[in-house]
């Protein structure tokens, strides 16, 4: 692998785009997940319907088509071109936020009714119950599925090559492979390793957060896995 240095340096030029798209996409995903997830549980029917339309609309359509739409169709409608990386972050966030909304909704609903009743008996307002009692407990349940979602988001950044963002997949495909065609195997292997390392970083961060969150609700990781192993619910 005598061209390894070249491969690495060309791929690395794409890294900032991949990382910015991932981090930005994750940030937007978190915001949209909470907004839409709580909206799905709203007492207002209208709010629930709007959230449901968003979730089903974005889960049920192709990410690539969404990307093309924002990139090529929207400028025709609104009259200006969105900066490519922003368009990329927007699509990644909108799309994964739709999945995240269901994660938030499910986790909030998994908090035992008894906890809410304890909070009502103390006369906390509905907002206080949600913010101080339900969400802190729900977050513990959200972290593992969010870990999955964020890794999927990382891998989806490869789609941004369709709209000419020079992230690492595009660097490999458009810059390296045409020049070093016989070494395509090594190039794509390197690409795989880069995605793997980034996903391991995401997992490491999420595991740490999981531990912190579990400790805050008084669960040791072993108690948690025991409970999962026996399938018993939280009393």
């Amino acid at each position, binding site marked *: 692998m005598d061209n390894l240095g070249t491969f690495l340096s060309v791929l690395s030029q794409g890294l900032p785009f991949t990382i910015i798209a991932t981090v930005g996409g994750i940030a937007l995903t978190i915001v949209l997940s909470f907004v839409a997830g709580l909206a799905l549980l709203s007492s207002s029917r209208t709010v629930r319907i709007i959230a449901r339309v968003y979730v089903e609309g974005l889960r049920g359509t192709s990410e690539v088509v969404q990307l093309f739409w924002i990139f090529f169709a929207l400028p025709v409608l609104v009259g200006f071109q969105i900066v490519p990386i922003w368009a990329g972050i927007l699509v990644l966030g909108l799309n994964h936020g739709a999945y995240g909304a269901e994660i938030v909704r499910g986790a909030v609903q998994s908090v035992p009714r008894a906890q809410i009743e304890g909070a*009502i*008996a103390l*006369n906390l307002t509905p907002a*206080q119950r949600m913010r101080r*009692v339900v969400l802190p407990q729900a977050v513990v349940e959200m972290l593992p599925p969010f870990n999955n979602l964020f890794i999927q988001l990382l891998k989806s950044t490869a789609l941004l090559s369709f709209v000419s963002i020079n992230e690492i997949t595009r660097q490999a495909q458009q810059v390296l492979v045409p020049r070093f065609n016989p070494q395509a195997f090594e190039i794509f292997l390197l690409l795989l390793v880069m995605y793997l390392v980034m996903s391991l970083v995401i997992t490491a961060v999420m595991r740490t957060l999981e531990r912190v969150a579990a400790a*805050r609700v008084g669960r040791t990781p072993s108690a948690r896995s025991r409970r999962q192993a026996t399938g018993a619910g939280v009393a």
Partner: protein
Amino acid sequence: MIEFDGVEKRFGDHVVLSELSFAVAPGEHVCLIGPSGSGKTTILRLLMTLEKVDAGTITVGGTSLSHMDKGGTLVPADDKHVREVRKRIGMVFQQFNLFPNMTVRGNLIEAPTRVLGLSKEEATARAQELLDLVGLGDRMDSHPTQLSGGQQQRVAIARALAMRPDVLLLDEVTSALDPELVAGVLTLLRDLGASTDITFLCVTHEMGFARDFSDRVMMFDGGRVIEDAAPEKLFTAPEHERTRAFLHAVVDR
């Protein structure tokens, strides 16, 4: 202090309480006994506004839980009204319902600071006083999961008392505890009964406790009060066959 007037409660087609009327005087200690499924918990949950009546009215300290006066006409209670009556009522649950995302301190000061508007210092001082009272003065920074069931229940009692309720509802507060932990909690409740002027309404299967804690015992069956008498009378000379059979069954357990 508490008044039920013609209260009906249904779950779907299942009528749990019908035409239920009774009153509890201020400072009175009343125990509800009766077989499982007879509607005892439902009565407490209605009082705590965790359920709504289907007919009839419940008043606490003269204020209706379900209706309010608006320009001379009765209208269904809004959130503000419900929160106002709720201020007077506290409840302790069978499963404690402590918040696992907070320490003992957090559990004790959360509502006093956010609902009553106490400062953190005031609420902490009150929490310390109450923890001392329930015999857990040194567990302020423990996590609920680090405490035994009996200790958790005592924290839950302290948490309810921190809101200074006029009425305290206790739903089988020792049923989830290991036998050796029951006595400590019951002793605490007896002390509270003797040292405060709180009105107690408790559901219990501990007949010994019901007997020496209460001023009145109400025997429930099928959503009706079968017998309502002083404990000395009800436990020694019950008038109704149903009461006799029930007492027989629980004492011979």
